[in-house]
C-alpha cells in the first residue's frame, strides 16, 4: 500500500482539487440551514408529484429490498392508473442505498434537497433507518419504512408500516408458551435488531416463567453453523427463537437439517424469514418451522387475492409476496390517501391527515396510530409448508394497537 500512496502523492494537486469539489457538493447537500422549512408543497411540479424510493439495489441486502421496491412501484402504477393523487401523476425517483448505511443517509438527503420529493419510501435494516432518521427530522420530510423492527423508536417524521415488537415478537412468544415451550434458545445476527429484540424477549421470559437456555449471536453474513447446531442439540431447548438476518438463515437451516434436527425435534420460530427468503433457503430445509408476521401470501382477504395477482402479473408467476413486500405496497397507498385527505403534500398537513386513517390492505384492515405513526396490525403465526408458502396457524383476530415503547407491559419496565 505504501508505494501506492507515494504514487498518489505525486498527483496530489489534481486529487486535492477533485476532493475540494466533492466536499463542496457534499457539504452543500448535507448541511442545510438548521430549521429550514421545506417548500410548502414538496414534489409538486406541473402535472406530477415526485416521490422517492430508496432501497438497496446492490450489495448484501439487495436480496430482500429489491422486491419491496417492486411492490412500491406496483402501488404507484395502480395509483396512477386511477388518476394519480390530487389529479397529478406520481413520478418515482429510485435511488440505490447499496446496503451501506451512510449511503442511505446521503441518498435520502439527495432525494429531499435536489429532487425535492414529496415523501420517501425506503430502508430495510434498522441500521439504515437509524442512519436516515436524523436526515428526515432535520429536513422535516417524510420517510415511510416498511419492515418489522425492534421498537423503542417513534420519530415524528417516520411512518412505520411494519410491525413493532408487540405486534410480532410477543405474539410469537405467546404462541410458543401456549404450545408448552419452557426452555428457549435465542439465536440472532450480531447487530441492533436482534440484540434489542432479545433484551425484550428475556424480560418477557422472566415474567412468563420461560427459561432462556442460551443467547447466541453470529456476525452478519456468517455461514458456518456447525458449532451452533451442536450447542443447540447439547442445550436441548424446546424451541429456538431466531432473529438471524440475511444469508445466514440459509446456512443455519441447511446445516440444522443436515445434522438431522427436524422441526418436530426442535421447532424454530423466525421473525425475519418470509416467503421470499424461504425460496432461497429451500422449503425442504424449512418445512414445519414457525414464523411470526402480519401477512402471508396465503392470507385470505379479497384485497390480497387482487394484490398477489397484480404482483405476479407484473413481475412473473414465479415471484412470491410476503410481509415486507405487502407493507411496502400498503405504505404507498397510505401516503396517497393521506395526501388526498390533506389536499396537499406538505408533510405537516399529511401527518395531520394521516391520524386515524384506515385502509383495507391485503393483510386486512390497518389503521394509522396518530401518536406513534405506527400501524394497527393483525399478528399472524404461521407454519412453513413444503411448497415454501406459509400457512396461518393462529392470529390475533383483531388488529393490535402499536406499542413501540412497550408501555402497556409491566415486564417491560426498565428496558
Amino acid at each position: 500500500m505504501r508505494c501506492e500512496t507515494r504514487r498518489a502523492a505525486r498527483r496530489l494537486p489534481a486529487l486535492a482539487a477533485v476532493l475540494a469539489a466533492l466536499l463542496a457538493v457534499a457539504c452543500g447537500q448535507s448541511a442545510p440551514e438548521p430549521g429550514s422549512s421545506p417548500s410548502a408543497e414538496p414534489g409538486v411540479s406541473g402535472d406530477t408529484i415526485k416521490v422517492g424510493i430508496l432501497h438497496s439495489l446492490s450489495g448484501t441486502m439487495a436480496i430482500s429490498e429489491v422486491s419491496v421496491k417492486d411492490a412500491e412501484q406496483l402501488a404507484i402504477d395502480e395509483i396512477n392508473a386511477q388518476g394519480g393523487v390530487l389529479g397529478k401523476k406520481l413520478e418515482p425517483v429510485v435511488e440505490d442505498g447499496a446496503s451501506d448505511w451512510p449511503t442511505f443517509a446521503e441518498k435520502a438527503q439527495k432525494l429531499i434537497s435536489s429532487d425535492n420529493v414529496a415523501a420517501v419510501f425506503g430502508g430495510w435494516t434498522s441500521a439504515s433507518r437509524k442512519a436516515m432518521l436524523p436526515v428526515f427530522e432535520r429536513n422535516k420530510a417524510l420517510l415511510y419504512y416498511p419492515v418489522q423492527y425492534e421498537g423503542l423508536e417513534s420519530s415524528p417524521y417516520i411512518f412505520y408500516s411494519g410491525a413493532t415488537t408487540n405486534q410480532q415478537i410477543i405474539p410469537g412468544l405467546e404462541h410458543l408458551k401456549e404450545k408448552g415451550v419452557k426452555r428457549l434458545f435465542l439465536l440472532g445476527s450480531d447487530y441492533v435488531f436482534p440484540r434489542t429484540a432479545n433484551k425484550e424477549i428475556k424480560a418477557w421470559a422472566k415474567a412468563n416463567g420461560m427459561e432462556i437456555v442460551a443467547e447466541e449471536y453470529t456476525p452478519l453474513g456468517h455461514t458456518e453453523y456447525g458449532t451452533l447446531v451442536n450447542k443447540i442439540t447439547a442445550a436441548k431447548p424446546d424451541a429456538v427463537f431466531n432473529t438471524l438476518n440475511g444469508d445466514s438463515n440459509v446456512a443455519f437451516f441447511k446445516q440444522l437439517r443436515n445434522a438431522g434436527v427436524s422441526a418436530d425435534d426442535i421447532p424454530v420460530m423466525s421473525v425475519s424469514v418470509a416467503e421470499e427468503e424461504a425460496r432461497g433457503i429451500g422449503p425442504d430445509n424449512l418445512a414445519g418451522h414457525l414464523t411470526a408476521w402480519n401477512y402471508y401470501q396465503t392470507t385470505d382477504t379479497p384485497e390480497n387475492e387482487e394484490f398477489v395477482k397484480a404482483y405476479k402479473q407484473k413481475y412473473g408467476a414465479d415471484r412470491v409476496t410476503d410481509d415486507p413486500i405487502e407493507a411496502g405496497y400498503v405504505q404507498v397507498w397510505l401516503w396517497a390517501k393521506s395526501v388526498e385527505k390533506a389536499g396537499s403534500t406538505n408533510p405537516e398537513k399529511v401527518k395531520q391527515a394521516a391520524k386515524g386513517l384506515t385502509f383495507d390492505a391485503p393483510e386486512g384492515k390497518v389503521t394509522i396510530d396518530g401518536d406513534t405513526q405506527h400501524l394497527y396490525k393483525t399478528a399472524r403465526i404461521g407454519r412453513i409448508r413444503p411448497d415454501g408458502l406459509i400457512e396461518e396457524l393462529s392470529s390475533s383476530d383483531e388488529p393490535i394497537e402499536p406499542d413501540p415503547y412497550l408501555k402497556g407491559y409491566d415486564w417491560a419496565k426498565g428496558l
Partner: protein
Amino acid sequence: MEIFLSQLFIGLSVASILLLVALGLTFTFGQMNVINMAHGEFVMAGAYTTYVIQGALGASLVTLGFLVALPLAFLVGGALGVVLEWVLIRRLSGRPLDTLLATFGVALILQQVARDVFGASNVQVRAPAFLDGAITVAGVSMSYTRLFIIALVGVCLAAIWAHLGRSPAGRRMRAVMQNRDLAAASGVRTPRVDRRTFFIGSGLAGVAGVAVTLLGSVGPTLGTNYLIDAFLVVIVGGLGRLRGAVMAAVALGLFNAYVEYGTDASIAKAAAFALIVVFLQFRPQGLVVQRARGLT
C-alpha cells in the same frame, strides 16, 4: 468427551471448506503472485452452475444434476479464469496492486451480472438425496454433506499432488513457480503455463462453489463470504505451499470450532484474526517456506 469429538468433526469440516476454497488460491495467489479478488466470484459461478444444471434436468434428477455439476463447474470456473487471465491479468503482470484493484472491479461486475441474470434473491439448490441426514458414531453426529465435502477435498488434493508431482505439465508449473526466468530460459513457455495454472486454480474455485451449495446460500454475494478466510489460509500456510495450506486450514478450523463452542462466533472470529496477526509477526513467511534461489 462427546462435545470434544463433535467439535473435532466440526473443526475438520470447517477446515475442509476453507481448504476447498483456498486450494485454487494457492495456485493463482501463491504461485503466480496474483491477488485475484474475483476468486470468490468463481466460487459463486460454480454454485450457480449447480443451480442451472438442476433446473435444466428437473426435479427428478437432483442427484445426477449435482454430480454432473462438479466437473462442469470446474470447466466454468476454469474458463472464466482463463478469460480473466488473458484479458486482464497478463497485461498487468508485475503490478500486484493494479491487479488487485482490477480484479476487485471484475468481482463487482460478475456479482452484478449474476444479479441481473438470476435475480437479487438467493436461489435454491437441492442437496442430493443420498446426502440427506447424518450418521452417528461414538455419540458424534456427522452429517453426510460434511463428510462428502471432506472426501471431495481429499480427492482434489490427491489429484493436484499427482498432477504437480507426476505429469510433465505439472512439473513445468512447479518450474515456473520456483524460478520464472530460469524456466523460460530452459524452454518452458511461461505464458502458456500461466494460463494453465489459472485454469486449474479457477476451476477448483468452481468445484468449491458446488460444494458450498450444500451448506450455505446461493446468491450473487456468495463469494465474498469465503474470500477473506481463503486468503488467510494461503497466507498463514505460506505462499504456494499445498502442505502449508492444509495445515493452516486444519489449524484455523479447529481453533474456530473450539473457541466458538466456549464463547461465541464473533469472539472466535476476532480471536482467530488476533492470533494470525501475532503469528505473522513471528513468522511472516507462513507455516511452510519455499526454499529456492532467486525467488522474490
